[in-house]
């Protein structure tokens, strides 16, 4: 063995021990990483991501560590963020508009999630684009729900089609569709009464509203938006599941993200039921509506 070789070998040893040390250091961190992993897991659970989805995500992280995609603790969060972002991004989150005639958007969800307010905000949004908007007061059940929508109509310059309180919501939807067609409306929003997804008679009512709209405009509703409250925990999955059985959902609106709730349950909804989130609500004012940006959402999950 020549001198240089010897040296090289000697150095190799040093190098080995050096890199070894570094690796150990990382491993040492990886030990701390157990804590760090726990902490991440906790963050996800606290964001309402849910046990199952959190487990899936943590598995991805462990895989990432094995495959050396995660080499230091610093890589952990960005990796998770990216994973969540990828899960949430989907090709179908464009809003579907009618090629001709009115676009009908049906807005559904459990009680108090923010359906009517969201319609108010969306109405303002499309009015801002110069569209002619109409609102159908098909929540004929809750006290003063019609007046509430009427106020949003006045605020945003949209005509409101209304019947008596207690009347058939499908009839309101029907009248509204006819009126929208007759009056050259661009977008018709149908507000519905809040209902728990387990009430089969109310789900039947929703199906009927859907059918009536479809009968008048075969490709309508062009959008069926499920409104979810970000404060909601794992029940949101049941909501998404059961509502979609009554009316095929094209997108989710996640409201009340201006609070401290993170709305992480939509990750599970996306993973299990593949529903894109299209809008987020960030306040009660007319302009407190934003398009959903997966990257921002993923990032916010880890913010304290």
């Amino acid at each position: 063995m020549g001198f240089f070789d010897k040296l090289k070998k000697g150095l190799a040893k040093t190098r080995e021990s050096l890199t070894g040390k570094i690796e150990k250091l990382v491993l040492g961190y990886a030990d701390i990483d157990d804590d760090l992993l726990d902490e991440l897991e906790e963050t996800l659970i606290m964001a309402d991501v849910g046990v199952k989805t959190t487990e899936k995500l943590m598995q991805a992280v462990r895989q990432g560590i094995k495959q050396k995609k995660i080499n230091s603790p610093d890589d952990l969060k960005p990796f998770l963020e990216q994973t969540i972002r990828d899960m949430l991004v989907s090709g179908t989150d464009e809003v579907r508009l009618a090629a001709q005639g009115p676009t009908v958007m049906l807005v559904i969800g459990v009680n108090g999630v923010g359906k009517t307010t969201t319609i108010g905000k969306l109405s303002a949004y499309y009015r801002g684009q110069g569209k002619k908007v109409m609102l159908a007061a098909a929540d004929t059940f809750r006290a003063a729900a019609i007046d509430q929508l009427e106020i949003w109509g006045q605020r945003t310059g949209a005509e409101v089609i209304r019947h008596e309180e207690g009347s058939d919501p499908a009839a309101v939807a029907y009248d509204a569709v006819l009126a929208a067609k007759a009056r050259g409306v661009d977008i018709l929003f149908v507000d519905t009464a809040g209902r728990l997804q387990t009430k089969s008679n109310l789900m039947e009512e929703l199906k009927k509203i859907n059918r009536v709209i479809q009968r008048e405009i075969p490709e309508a509703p062009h959008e069926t938006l499920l409104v979810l409250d970000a404060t909601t925990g794992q029940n949101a999955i049941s909501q998404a599941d059961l509502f979609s059985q009554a009316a095929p959902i094209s997108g989710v609106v996640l409201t009340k993200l201006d609070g401290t709730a993170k709305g992480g349950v939509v990750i599970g909804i996306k993973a299990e039921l593949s529903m894109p989130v299209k809008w987020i609500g960030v306040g009660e004012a007319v302009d407190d509506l934003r398009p959903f940006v997966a990257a921002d959402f993923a990032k916010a999950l880890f913010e304290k």
Partner: protein
Amino acid sequence: MIFEGLADRLQATFKKLRGHGRLTEDDVNEAMREVRMALLEADVNFKVVKDFVKRVQERAIGQDILATLTPAQVVIKIVNEELTALMGGSQSRLNISSVPPTVIMMVGLQGAGKTTTAGKLGLALKKQGKHPLLVAADIYRPAAVKQLQVIGGQLDIPVYAMKPGTDAVTIAKTAVPYATAHAADVVIIDTAGRLHINEELMQELKSIKAEVKPQEILLVVDAMTGQDAVNVAESFNGDLGLDGVVLTKLDGDARGGAALSVKAVTGCPIKFVGMGEKLEALEPFYPDRMASRILGMGDVLSLIEKAQDVYDVEEAKKMEKKFRKDEFTLDDFLSQLQQVRKMGSFEQILGMLPGMGNLKKQLDGVDVDFNGKEIKHVEAIIRSMTSAERADITLINGSRRKRIALGSGTRVQDVNKVIKQFADMKKMMKQMQKMRGGRKGFGSFKMPFMH
């Protein structure tokens, strides 16, 4: 739904351990993993779960396993007891002032159900002979005042509102002397929903509190609330000092872990639960039932009570005997259907029973979820049968089916369907019968940990 009951899961975890004399640390640790999962899936707050599991773990290790209980049963029993205790042992009532009026303030996040609950509470108090006044202090949400006015109108309870532009504090402040002047002895103030981090609006509540000095500040919490429930409860409690909690929307399928979280961070008792949109649907809170529900063990007790509400006891006993002796006829079927409708959908009822998950799956193909119209159909069909046919469906052959269809104005396939549903129901009743313990009556549904 996605979740199978904790009882079943623990049973599986412990299968291999049957016959141990004493719970070892390993046994308990394994079981606690399942308990932890169950609680988290029920939306109990992470930190609350952590503390809880630790406490139960300590208590469970070293426990004797009695001859009559499996290890899983021992663990569930302990978990259930601890959970019930944590949620507040016994029921607690409203603070009623000795000098009227009693002032109650409803507070909470947007959409939690404050306005409806204010109405429900008004009705409940009215039924107790009180004279409530509802106060419309939500000046922000469009038509919120109108909503309370409509509810007040439905209940025939006066509503105090002021002209638009009046601030909430003034409304609340002037409502109290108004109540005194008009012989109202309870003032229920409906406030606007607000985020716990909105300082300005939280200040508004503090000012109202300072002015009206309420006996009760009730936090209204949606049963579907997730992990954030602790932050919300902590803030409201810190700013206002809560006296109680109302848990709403419990008529759905939410497991309601928020109840535990809120109780754990505020120490406030949960005083009522909202069980529906109707204004009568306000019930006292039962910690033991909530515990079973959070654990996914079925809301057995609630079901029993509901059943007792709807059924008269004699009738129920008679039916049970009929099931047992297999003497259940189409006539009984019809009256059962009508009863069951009053309790909720069939599916919901099954959901409330422990160990019914599988049965529910089996029944998925079977259309047992009758709506009102269908019941009318069923009724017409059964009424078109002769009494001999009703007593023994095997008599009903093809030509009889045609006759029955004609008589009831339905189609033969409708008749077939009813007969099939009846047969299915009988089958189901038999299965339920098997799951029952030796004791009689509705109280005898066997809990999974009583195997």
